[in-house]
């Protein structure tokens, strides 16, 4: 018993060390969305190019697509735009959700960087129609929705080239096969 007590500090140190070491490689802001496995919420939002035309959930469901939440006010959105263009060129349908933005600024953003989106929905500031129900708390955020309308993957943060090649494209292909 006495012998064991002598080793107790070492054991405690090792246990704490293991936890702290694991913590080094963990991202505290990375957490799984509560929407994974849940259906895309109902909504009704205007299009950026045609504000009179309302788009609903049913208009989008049918094929696997990415929903990218962006705004011209969001610096990280500029960083990831190149990757969104690349995925669109590879044939992935990407629906944009222009979030808490102004149409004029959104148009300027697209004319500068190009428009990779199949269509762009507009959720102006103060409206809590879709982004809030998706648990969006910033931009950029990206969701993968399968052909049944179920949310299958979520990323809060910048899409990097590695993420596209190693995670997002494989996920898209996986759910395209699954139909």
């Amino acid at each position, binding site marked *: 018993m*006495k012998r064991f007590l002598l080793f107790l500090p070492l054991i405690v140190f090792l246990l704490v060390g293991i936890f702290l070491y694991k913590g080094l490689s963990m991202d505290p802001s990375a957490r*799984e969305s*509560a929407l994974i496995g849940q259906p895309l919420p109902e909504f009704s939002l205007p299009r950026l190019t045609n504000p009179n035309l309302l788009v609903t959930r049913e208009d989008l469901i049918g094929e696997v697509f990415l929903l990218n939440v962006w705004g011209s006010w969001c610096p990280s959105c500029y960083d990831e735009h190149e990757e969104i263009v690349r995925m669109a060129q590879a044939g992935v349908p990407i629906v944009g959700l222009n979030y*808490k933005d102004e149409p004029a600024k959104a148009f300027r953003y697209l004319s500068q960087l190009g428009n990779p989106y199949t269509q762009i929905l507009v959720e102006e500031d103060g409206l*809590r129609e879709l982004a809030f*129900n998706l*648990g969006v*708390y*910033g931009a950029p955020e990206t969701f993968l929705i399968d052909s049944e309308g179920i949310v299958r993957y979520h990323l809060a943060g910048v899409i990097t080239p590695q993420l596209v090649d190693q995670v997002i494209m494989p996920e898209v292909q996986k759910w395209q096969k699954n139909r």
Partner: protein
Amino acid sequence: MAKKSIIFLLFLLLSATSQAAIELYDFSDDSYRLRYKEVGGQLRCPKCENQSIADSNSPSAYDMRQELYRLLEEGKTDQQIFDFMVQRFGDYVLYNPPMRSDTWLLWYLPPALVFLGLLLAFFLVRSRKSSHSTAKMSLSERQLRIQKILELEKNADPTLSSSNTKESK
């Protein structure tokens, strides 16, 4: 000069809007105001890890306060409001995590560690007390004890050497 001071005054106007993080809500019932503060203080802002939505200035916390107000006015219970937020933002938004099989470590580890610490302290104090007891012994008692210890060592020696030879094989 007059132009400059007018511009300065206009800039002052800007500073007034920059600190307008306090919203005005018109509660239909006074009890809602209390619950708004209480529930808002127990919901964690998704954008800022260490602030409740009542404290945070982030747009997402603002949206959550707006929804909180709407839900209160709709007559929802606290639990319904928590469920509503968890459905969208996950367990993360709760400052009081739910008691479940995957969270029991979170709940029981701290009291268990305190208990272990108390146990350890108890044994340490007891063993120290027993070692101090030699100080109270008289001279003859001490000599007796020393003799006992020496005898014990003599008896222990052969077993020690025999185990040593076993190991060397």
